């Protein structure tokens, strides 16, 4: 993981994400997407960042007690850190498998919770790292390179 190695001071964005807020979920990702567009990032990087942050936002809203999205924007890359407090993930390897989900029925009725979120985040990122502790929370760090 290459977060913080660049000597250039990044542009930083920070968003608090509330548990169960299905109305505002996605607003942080929308703002991140617009910021990247204004800073001259290309279509595929912006789209991947938007999908990755949106999936992260939804995971925080659905599964945690609340959390945050922190974004560091460098000229050549974007570092996204989604951190939450909550039950954590007992088996990360299992959670990374497509189709595995612990989402409640209400979320499935909305069309989410098919066990695609974490794998999709990994697919969107050039670098992906997940750390989770039971009854503490989960942190996902993703790096996307410009034009990557």
């Amino acid at each position, binding site marked *: 993981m290459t977060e913080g190695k660049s000597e250039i001071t990044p542009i930083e964005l920070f968003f608090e994400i509330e548990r169960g807020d299905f109305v505002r979920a996605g607003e942080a990702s929308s703002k991140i997407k617009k910021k990247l567009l204004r800073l001259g990032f290309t279509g595929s990087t912006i789209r991947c960042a938007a999908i990755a942050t949106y999936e992260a936002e939804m995971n925080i809203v659905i599964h945690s007690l609340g959390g945050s999205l922190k974004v560091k924007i460098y000229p050549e890359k974007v570092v996204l850190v989604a951190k939450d407090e909550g039950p954590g993930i007992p088996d990360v390897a299992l959670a990374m498998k497509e189709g595995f989900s612990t989402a409640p029925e209400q979320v499935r009725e*909305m*069309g989410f919770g098919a066990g695609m979120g974490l794998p999709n985040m990994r697919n969107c990122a050039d670098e992906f790292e997940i750390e989770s502790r039971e009854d503490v929370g989960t942190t996902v760090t993703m790096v996307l390179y410009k034009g990557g």
Partner: protein
Amino acid sequence: MTLLEVKELLRADSYTECDLSNCEVKAACGADLLSDVLAFTKEQVLLLTGLVHPQVIRTAEMLDLAGIVFVRGKVPSPEMIELAEKKEIPILSTSYPMFKSCGLLYASGVDGDICD
């Protein structure tokens, strides 16, 4: 095919102020699973869905979709319309069911190849 032609073909109502004649649709997907849409759909695809809640608009925004058609007579709420206007996502609603809507579009030349 433009979104205006989609509207006429599906006898749909439009709920946003977008100029539908300027919105080109090359491919479409029918889905009630947003997880799959997020994982497998490329940009400028038209989404047909029976789901009606604000996160459908958010999903379309993140993916740069061409627009949304709500099927089976589902009508977007005022807050969804407001969000769609703000995000400039065209939204339509048709009384036709999903299969008929997709079939009509496919028979009219809209592609089903939605993956990158």
